[in-house]
Structure formats: C-alpha cells, structure tokens
C-alpha cells in the first residue's frame, strides 16, 4: 500500500515537473509498449542477457578458484591484487583487450569478466575472512583434515553466500553491460540501442530503455533471491 502511494506520488511529480525536454510518464509508457513489440528490441535484449550470464558464469568460476586458493599464501597475494583491480578503468584497456581477442564478442566478454571479477573476489574474500573461527574448530574436533575442512566450511558452508554475491553483483554486471556494448557495438545489445537512441536525441525511448534495464535488474534480483532460498532453505532462518 505504502509503495503504491509512493509510486503514485512519484508519477504525479514526474508528470507535473516534466517540460518539453523531459518526456512525460504517459509518453514513456507508450514508448515502452512500442519497444516491447519490436523484434529488434528482443534481439538486442537477448544478446545483452546472454553476454551478461556468460560473463557472470566465467567470473564466478574464476572468483571461486582464486578465492578458494587464497587460503594458500601464494594465491592470497594474487587474490588481493585482483581486489585492487577494481580501480582500473575498462575504457583505458580496450586497445589491449582488442589486441588480445579475436572478435567483438570475445572483446566484450573479456572486458566484462575483467570488470566483474575484482568485485566478485572482493565480496568473496570478505566472506572468507569473516568466517567464525568456531567453524574451523568444530571441523578439527570432528577429526577433519584440511581438505575436508575446506570443503565443509568454505565450499559447502559458504555456497549460499556465493549465490548472494552473485545476486548483489548482478547489478554491477548489468551496469557494465551497457558500457561494454557501447565500447564495441559490433553485435548489438541493449547498450548499443541506448547509444543509438541517444544519438538521435530520442529521449522518450532512452527513458523507456532505462526502465527496461531497471525492471530486468529487479526481476533478476528477485529470481536469484528466490533460487537462493530454494537451494539453501536454512538462509530463511538466519
């Protein structure tokens, strides 16, 4: 009820405050409906979603490998360096990545993975460092060796948190996809569409596209949250 009132007030303020430059909610809604009816939109949307999911999959695999290995001193420093890579900009690395990859698809994927992994590693390392010492102690008292402890405490015990990291960082991936698609427009995508409509000054469609991006993000957030609860039922008691 409260949310409905808040949405109504927002729409009212938007309707009254918008002048000629900022499109009114009605126009955006019409553009949104038109957009959903076009094949071009769905093709681009699928390209973006496919690329994001692929990048997320690669990123989580790389993250897990380095995060699990970070318990060993040699890999700990590598994982810590990966955390620092959050401060690198993707724009400055396009040329290098272009030289290292064979086509636009590979370029976008590698840029995305490079952009996402540091955030994933940061989140996952903080999960590992905050593990309760008693979890290790309990394993020791049960007579587990180091590998059994690693499996029980970090791999199985933190699987739900891996999923939570995935959910939280989906927003980052989704944010980066539009940027990466803007950098390499060869295969389309929602980011390419945004740039195209921006170039034509079609603000109504741009806002409609933003709404699509926003709603898709919310849907994935809900979906990943629901899957987490289903896969890890104990999380609802935490």
């Amino acid at each position, binding site marked *: 009820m409260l949310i409905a009132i808040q949405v109504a007030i927002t729409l009212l303020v938007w309707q009254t405050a918008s002048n000629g430059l900022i499109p009114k909610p009605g126009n955006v809604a019409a553009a949104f409906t038109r957009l959903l009816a076009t094949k071009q939109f769905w093709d681009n949307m699928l390209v973006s979603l496919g690329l994001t999911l692929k990048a997320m999959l690669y990123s989580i695999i790389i993250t897990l490998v380095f995060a699990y290995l970070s318990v060993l001193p040699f890999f700990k420093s590598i994982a810590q360096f990966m955390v620092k890579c959050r401060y690198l900009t993707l724009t400055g690395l396009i040329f290098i990545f272009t030289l290292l990859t064979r086509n636009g698809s590979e370029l976008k994927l590698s840029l995305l993975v490079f952009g996402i992994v540091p955030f994933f590693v940061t989140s996952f390392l903080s999960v590992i460092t905050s593990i309760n010492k008693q979890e290790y102690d*309990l394993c020791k008292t049960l007579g587990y060796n180091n590998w059994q402890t690693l499996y029980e405490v970090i791999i199985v015990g933190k699987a739900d948190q891996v999923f939570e990291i995935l959910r939280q960082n989906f927003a980052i991936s989704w944010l980066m996809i539009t940027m990466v698609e803007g950098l390499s427009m060869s295969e389309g995508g929602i980011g390419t569409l945004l740039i195209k409509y921006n170039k034509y000054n079609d603000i109504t469609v741009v806002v409609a596209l933003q709404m699509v991006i926003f709603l898709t993000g919310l849907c994935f957030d809900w979906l990943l949250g629901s899957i987490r609860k289903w896969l890890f039922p104990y999380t609802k008691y935490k």
Partner: protein
Amino acid sequence: MTVCTKTTTLLQAENIGLQYDDKIILRDINFCIRDIHRPGMQQGQVVSLIGRSGIGKTQLFRILSGLQQPTNGNVFINGRQQVKAGDMGVIFQNYYLFEWRTIYQSLMMSAKQNQLLKGEEKQYIEKYAADFHLKEHLQKYPQQLSGGQRQRVSIIQQLLKGSKFLLLDEPFSGLDVCMLDKVSDLLLQVSTSDEQNTLIIVSHDISTAVAISDTVFILGNEEGQPGAIIKREIDLIERDLAWQRDIKSNPAFIKTVEEIKSCL
C-alpha cells in the same frame, strides 16, 4: 563412602604452560584423571575445572582439546598418546553447529568419522536421537532449535564421533534453574552410559559443576606468582559427595563449595 576403585590413567596433563610474549597465562599445570570402577554399574568420570573468569580456563580447555599447543608441557591420553585435535569431543560454550546442515546431516557426518559405526550410522543416530529426545528435530536446522536442544545435538555429535572424552566449556552458562537441572541430568546420563566416558567440565558455576562431579580441580593464582596453576584437587568420592541426588542441600557439600570459593 561409596565403594569404588580408581585404576588406569585416562588423561595426564604434564607441566602445561602457556605464555603470550611476556605474559604467563598458565604455569606447571599437572593433573591426572583415572578410570573409576563401581561394582555392578557403568560409571564414567566427571571432572570439574573451576576457576574465576579470565584465569585461563578457556586456554586450558583449548589445550586439553588439542586445539591449541601449549608453550610447554603435554597432554596425554590412553597411555602416552599425545592429544591432538579430534581426539577429544568438544562442546563449545555456545553449542556451535554447522548452520547449513540439518541435525541429521550433522550427526551423520560425525558418525561417518567413526569406523566402529560403519554401516550402522543411521541406527545409532536414531538411537541417540531417541535417548536425547531429539527424534522429531532431526530434519531441522540448528537455527530452529532452542539452546538446550543445540547442546544435546552437540553432545550426540561428539559421542557419535566416538569420543570417550567430552570437554564442555561453561555448559551451565546462561541457563535458568529448570534447565540447570536438566543439563545436569543429561551430563550424568552421558557419564553413566559408558564406563570409559570422561566428562571434563570447565565452569565458574561452582555449585552446579561440583554437584555432578567426582573430582574437582581448582585453577587459580599463587600469591606473587604469575600464571594460573592447579591450586587444589578435591576428591569428592573420598568425601562421600559424589553421585548423589539432591546433594546441594547436604551440609558437607555446602562446606566444600565454600572451601572451593575461598581457594579462588
């Protein structure tokens, strides 16, 4: 006096010392726990380690459990076998359990560690669950259990692993009067379920710990000396204060509790 004999040494702590930089926490800790035999019944051992808060009880607890190495000295069990993590059953103060496992899964993991139960893990889990009134909670997660239920699960977990030694860190902490009696009964049940079962209770609740023990070790400081030592050993069997129900109202028991308090 109750008829009993003390035979083989089950646990021997020899010259245990613990020091962090210049700070001495524990010094020359020496004690031994012997197997008690009572004719016609299974009688395990219940030993209390009593001391003030901050005296080093938890550190001694961790050393006895093999979770921490002492600066010097050794703990031996089953003859001259040096204790290592996994030899002892440990029940932590907050009854820590794997939050991501159901009770049944947690117990099964423990049972799988015990070669003697091979192929019969399920039956043993069900037996213990029935004995400890946990049968209807086996499919629950630890977060769904009360403190008392978690404590029982922790105990079963360590018993299934095959531990004859059970170390309990402050098992009476934060319990109300009704629960205190229940936990005391539970510990007595464990101690009498196997001749070899040995409970080492680390506590600052003198009265409750002493009421279920056969031996008390008092951990304290000596005047002008750094680091805690075992100041006294009290044999409650000798004083005819062991294994008796409603012992707390016995004048000799009250006197013993006062004596322990004066030592702290």
